[in-house]
């Protein structure tokens, strides 16, 4: 019976465990988003440089994260690095590193796009009052482009939150993993446990991502006019 199956969520400390799992998910996501966006903004600025080599190096970096699935990156950092280079990292740290690098790569493209779409006259009138390159970026170009990057940056953040579901694969005990454990434990006596547990996880992701995606839509509409 479906309606009795919902009890699985409230049995013992199941609810607490799920929320603790959610906390791990949120922790990885929040750190990765903050580090990724900051690093990505800096790289985005560097990528507007005239140097061909600099442009190419960061272009390759971006493409690597686009072509190779994030799951593979997680495996590389979690299984390959310790085996071949004797670097042992906690799975959660590995997750934050991989997600931050991925976020930075995508963010750099967003920031770069916004910077190069600014009118050339902004650069020239900044130079005309004697600003140096750093001042030009700091006072004029970055503030003007940040507004344009916000909708896409929020989209990126929701993608990153959703992709944390992959962390199960390297053994991070996040919300999906906790859910699986609860289901395995309950399955014999409660055949509908998976429905309720995954349904609840669905709901948790929804309340994390929906407000962000709405916000980005609103900003996009507001700034389009």
């Amino acid at each position, binding site marked *: 019976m479906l309606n009795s199956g919902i009890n699985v969520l409230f049995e013992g400390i199941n609810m607490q465990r799920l929320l603790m799992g959610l906390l791990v998910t949120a922790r990885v996501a929040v750190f990765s988003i903050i580090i990724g966006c900051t690093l990505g903004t800096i790289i985005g600025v560097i990528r507007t440089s005239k140097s061909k080599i600099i442009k190419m190096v960061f272009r390759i970096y971006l493409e690597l994260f686009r072509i190779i699935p994030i799951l593979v990156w997680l495996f590389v950092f979690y299984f390959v690095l310790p085996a071949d280079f004797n670097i042992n990292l906690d799975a959660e740290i590995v997750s934050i590193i991989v997600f931050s690098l991925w976020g930075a790569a995508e963010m750099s493209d967003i920031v770069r796009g916004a910077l190069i779409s600014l009118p050339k006259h902004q650069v020239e*009138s900044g*130079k005309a*009052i*004697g600003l140096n390159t750093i*001042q030009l970026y700091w006072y*004029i170009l970055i503030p003007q482009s940040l507004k344009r990057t916000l909708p896409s940056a929020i989209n990126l953040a929701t993608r990153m939150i959703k992709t944390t579901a992959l962390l199960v694969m390297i053994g991070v005990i996040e919300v999906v993993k906790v859910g699986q454990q609860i289901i395995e434990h309950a399955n014999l006596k409660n055949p509908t446990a998976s429905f309720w547990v995954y349904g609840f996880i669905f709901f948790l992701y929804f309340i994390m991502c929906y407000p962000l995606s709405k916000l980005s839509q609103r900003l996009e509409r507001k700034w389009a006019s």
Partner: protein
Amino acid sequence: MSEATPLLQVKKLVKKYNNKTILNGIDLTVDKGKVIVILGPSGCGKSTLLRCLNGLEDIQDGSILFAGQELIDPKVSWQKIRQQIGMVFQSYDLFPNMTVLENVLLGPIKVQKRDRAEALAQARELLQRVDLADRENDYPRQLSGGQKQRIAIVRALCMNPEIMLFDEVTASLDPEMVREVLNVILQLASQGMTMVIVTHEMNFARSVADEIIFLDNGNICEAGHPEDFFNNPQTDRAKQFLNILQF
């Protein structure tokens, strides 16, 4: 600087874009306190010349001397020179992320590292002079084209430049706003500001200029006193140019 040194001296300046010669050996002398107006058909290189004077374009040959100092010398920093050369462009180029006052104070405070109170006092006085004292906390989007252009002039003036360069600053303005901007420039001229002005407003050119430079095909075709130039142009190109303007 000795009496004899011109403020700005351009010698045999050559500017090319991908092997296409835009300016072909321009010689130009601007003495302190003088107003030079550059006229010429569209695409003849007027903007390019002004941009070279401010280091926004690199040059292929010749030299530019500012107060006797060679500007293409790699030891000279354009950042330093630009503080002494004010430039106003055709497009309203205020920084949209800053208020009027922030726009005006950015250069004096961040570039020249002047005392805020002192720069603020000067900014307010200049805003007063262009009749925009009450708009100091507005953002550029709240201003009309003419108002933005007057603020752009104030922003350049607040750096206390030795010379001002104006590139068709009224060209994208509605006719009724042209006047208010030109008045500001006329006022500057009467105060003895050294200026190089590119414009399509012939009456204004006539009244403000100490010397008219007529540019065509990357060369100075004709240079002289405005009355001589408008009443008695010497070259066919200049005659043609003036005729077109008179319908």
